[in-house]
Structures are given as C-alpha cells and as structure tokens.
C-alpha cells in the first residue's frame, strides 16, 4: 500500500516536472520573443498558478471543470493536469531567467551566421539556458514532490494519504508519519544527487556558472 502510494507520488511529480518543463520552455520563449499579447496572456497564466494555493487549484479543476465541460475526469488525471500546469508556471520563471542570462551577444552571433531566431533559440540559447537552470530546477522538483501531499484533499491515494489511512487504522501515528517522511526524504535525496551529477556532467568546461 505504501509502495503504491509512493509510486503515485512519483508519477504525479515526474509527470508534472517533465510536462511542466516542456510547457515552461514554451511559455518562456513565448514571453521573451512572442510579442505583447502572448506575453500578457502568459503573465496572467503564471500569476494565477503562482498566486493561488495549490489546494484551491486542485478544487477548481476537480469540481468546476468537469461540470463546465460536462464530462467526468478522474482524480488522478486532475492531479496530473494541475501539477503540470502549476509546475509550468514556476519553471517558466526559472527558464526565462536562465535564457535572459545567456546574453544578447549569443543571439547576435547566431544571426550573423544566418541562423533564424528559432534556430538560435534551439541550438544556442536553450542549450546554455538549460544547463544553468538545473540548480533552481532541483528546487522545483523538491517542492513539487512535497506538494503532492495536497492531493489528499481530492482523495487521491498519494503517499501522504496512504500514511494517513495507515495511521488511522493502526493508531501508530508518529511511526507511520516518520516512515512516510523518510521515504520522501530518500526519494528527493536520490533525485537531487542525480541532478547534481547531471549538472556537473553537462557543465561547460572552463566556465563556472552561478545561477
């Protein structure tokens, strides 16, 4: 049961973080190069997801959207969608910052070779920005993993919710939650270690980047 809950937490986190990364990149590009209107829309999007509590977002998606669209969405899907959209809003901020720190000159040099703007982003700006973004990105991973515990408000059996159930059955509240906390801790440490190795592996030789 605990294992099932753990797998669910991992699924939601990884889905959120990966889809959030893809969306975040698109949002960052849209905000930086898309012109005024897309940039304003993106701002609203980001403000909504950063400015409102995750639990409220979960409720909104779980209760209102199915009514509005007149279709049934299961809890797990709601969880995936909300986490991806929420994470995209945060990741957009990190990625945009990193892209801005790749100076204008890299773009100018790309254009001078005849690359299009899109190609310059794809082959020059993003490869550099994504390297820089790894440390702040690992923060996003931590906080997203822990946020999955909010899923219990819509009744998804994530790790915390499993813990709550076990605690209610067994009355061993402290032991149960301590164990649950340990699982979170181990999982996060492992991923952070991997990200750290990755960061050092893709680091541009000769340059110490400080983000």
């Amino acid at each position, binding site marked *: 049961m605990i294992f099932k809950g753990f797998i669910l937490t991992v699924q939601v986190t990884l889905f959120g973080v990966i889809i959030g990364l893809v969306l975040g990149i698109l949002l960052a590009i849209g905000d930086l190069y898309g012109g005024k209107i897309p940039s304003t829309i993106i701002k609203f999007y980001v403000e909504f997801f950063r400015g409102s509590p995750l639990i409220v977002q979960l409720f909104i998606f779980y209760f209102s959207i199915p009514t509005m669209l007149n279709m049934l969405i299961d809890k797990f899907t709601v969880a995936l969608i909300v986490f991806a959209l929420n994470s995209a809003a945060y990741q957009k901020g990190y990625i945009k910052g990193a892209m801005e720190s790749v100076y204008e*000159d890299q773009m100018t040099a790309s254009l001078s070779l005849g690359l299009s703007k899109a190609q310059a982003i794809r082959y020059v700006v993003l490869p550099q920005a994504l390297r820089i973004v790894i440390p702040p990105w690992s923060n996003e991973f931590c906080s997203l993993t822990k946020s999955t515990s909010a899923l219990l408000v819509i009744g998804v059996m994530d790790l915390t919710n499993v813990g709550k159930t076990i605690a209610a059955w067994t009355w061993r509240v402290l032991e149960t939650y301590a164990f649950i906390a340990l699982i979170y801790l181990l999982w996060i440490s492992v991923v952070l270690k991997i990200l750290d190795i990755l960061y050092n592996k893709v680091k541009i030789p000769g340059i110490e980047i400080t983000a």
Partner: protein
Amino acid sequence: MGKQKKEAVGTVGGRRIADIVMKCRNLWKIYGKIVAVKDVSLEIKEGDIKLIFGPSGSGKSTLARCLAMLTTPTKGDVFLREECLTKPGVALNKARARIGFVFQHIWLFHHLTGLGNVELGLRRVLKLPKKEARERAMQALREVKMEEWANKYPAQLSGGQQQRVGIARALAMSPEIILLDEPTSSLDPELTGEVIDTLRDLAKKGSTMLVISHEMPFAREVADEMMFLDEGTIVERGPPERFFTKPSSERARRFMARLIKRTRGK
C-alpha cells in the same frame, strides 16, 4: 523571371555591377536623439580590402552592423550584390549567411567546442551533411592554425585563439564578404599579432573584407582604401599612403598623429 532580371541589371554602362559585393547608400542609424551613422555611402568590390578607423563612439561598429543587417538602419539602403537588404520582406537569414562577421568581443558559443562553433552554421544554415560539415570546419580551423585546439571549449582558449576560431566560424561559411569589427581591440599586443597574421593570410587569398581596426602597420600593408569615420560620417577616404603622409582633413591628421605615436610607443 528571376534570371532575366539578374541579367538586366548585370551590366550598367559597360561596367559589371556584379563586381560590387556590397554597398550602402545614404545610410543613417539613429538611436533616439543620438545619430550613430550619418549619411554614409560606400561600396566594396570583389577582392577589396577597406579599412575603417576613427575614434570610439564614431559609429564604426554600428555601421558594420547595419551593413550585416544585424541592426536595421533607420534610413538608407544596403545592397549585397544586386539585392537590396533594406527592403521589407527580404530573407535576411539567407543574406546574413553570405556575410561573414567577426565581433570585437568574439562572442563564440560558450557551450560548443571550437569545432562545434564552426560547424553550427554549416550544419544548420547550409544544411551540410555531418561529415562534410566536419571536414569544412576543420579546413577553416586549419586556415587560422587552430586545428590542434578544435576540441577545446572557448573558455579553455586564450583570447587570440578564441578570435581565430571566431574568424574560422565566419570563414567556413564561404562568405562573399567578411566584416571584421575591431577584431583585435579586446586582445593584448601579443595576441593581436597572431590574429593580425591570420588576417594578413586572408588578405593574401584575395578575400573581400571590410575591417575596422587601428592596427596601422597592418592597414598600410593590406588596405586598398582607408576611411576615417568621425561622428557617424566618413570625414576622409583614400589610399593608405595618403593617410600616412598628408591627410587632408585636420581631424584625420590629428587622429593619425596620435595613432602613429602610440604604435611607435609599443
């Protein structure tokens, strides 16, 4: 239709226009209240080496960037061969691929090796297959004597080596003209020497170049024409000898005197 048009403008008054690689007509660049380039016209013929010099802030870099269409001129026209680049709807990427540009602050791509820097345009702009791109990139690096360092990242190279990669990056694209914006001014004298040697080789091969530089011995040796730019406009132009013996404008004379003194001082 395109071909017909080309032939129609190919010759005017018996002179082949195609011989002119690049020209600009009444070029202006204005930033807010600052006039960076003021009514500049010039033409660069096949194999020409033009040298632009002048005090800092005189608009040299802006002029070069306008010619490469890295910034849009406020007024005036830029032509690459017969094609007007300042008309709306021109495929600027295609045009820029035919113009080599070497930057004052080098601006290599930090995340790519020297070879990667040179390959990028060959692969993504000229769409060469991997193997061919690699060969051509190595050839370009050989020309600037950087093949040994091909796999080093920019941050692992000295300034002079970086700039030679920068030159190779521009060269590899086989541009019709190379614009060099003070290629040595961010380097110390020793490194300047190695870059100047590279440029001298280029000049000997008959490359068409517009060089912004204050390396006067180099200018005297290779330039076909020198242009003195001040306050955004060409104050004086002529063969190098005239600048070294008797510039006609007072402004150029004073500037030359200072430059020559500085060079001797070294």
